[in-house]
């Protein structure tokens, strides 16, 4: 499990979540995104294409990051959720808080 950060030509940071986003690694993701925010990045896509599962702590860190990014005038979008993860966002009503795109490419195009 790991997180990868890449910045495209338009300055959008794409964060890949490989494996899981759970209580044991959420702080690592949070710190990486906050470091990029401190470094001036304002547009973020979290790519869940390679993610097996997300627990409530992982959901919580996304809520917290989204708030912090918005406070800095930025935007956080989610992409690549499989059917189960999409259902998780719907059950928790977090689909109403986040802009969710089917693919990272769609999320990037929406900025």
């Amino acid at each position: 499990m790991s997180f990868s950060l890449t910045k495209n030509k338009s300055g959008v940071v794409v964060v890949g979540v490989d494996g899981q986003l759970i209580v044991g690694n959420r702080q690592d993701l949070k710190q990486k995104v906050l470091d990029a925010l401190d470094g001036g990045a304002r547009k973020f896509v979290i790519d869940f294409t390679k993610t097996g599962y997300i627990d409530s702590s992982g959901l919580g860190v996304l809520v917290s990051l989204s708030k912090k990014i918005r406070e800095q005038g930025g935007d956080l979008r989610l992409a690549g959720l499989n059917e189960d993860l999409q259902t998780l966002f719907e059950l928790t009503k977090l689909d109403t808080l986040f802009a969710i795109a089917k693919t990272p490419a769609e999320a990037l195009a929406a900025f």
Partner: protein
Amino acid sequence: MPLRLDVRPSATGGESDFELALDVPSDLGYVGPAVELIADRFKGGVLSPRRVRFNLRTALAEALANAIAYGNRHDPRRLVHVRVEAGRDAVHIHVTDAGAGFDPAVVPDPTLPGRLEREDGRGLFVLRSLVDHVAFSAAGNSICLTLRAG
């Protein structure tokens, strides 16, 4: 401390029946490895790969995190005990901590408008959404998750 999974055939003796036991230290860093150790035992078993990948892993991670954080309060002297009974019809996962227990009825609904933007408070809700049945011990320090076969 390395995690050690105890695997034994079930007392009921069915071919697909087995029992697992695992003690997990009260450190959230153990949640991921403990979940993988248990989920690996269900390859080709009574639960579909999709339900193992998502429902079992997520629900078990929630139960372990709750037991470590709220039950054992991260106390390194306390362990969380996991016992899994896998049968032909269902899998039962018991997660027990050494805490004083809690009343699940008083946990607020995290989907209410005033709570939606909170970082915490979704664990029990997520857990209940992903398994077929949830039961608590009378003391409130042990939870049993049931996933029916399929």
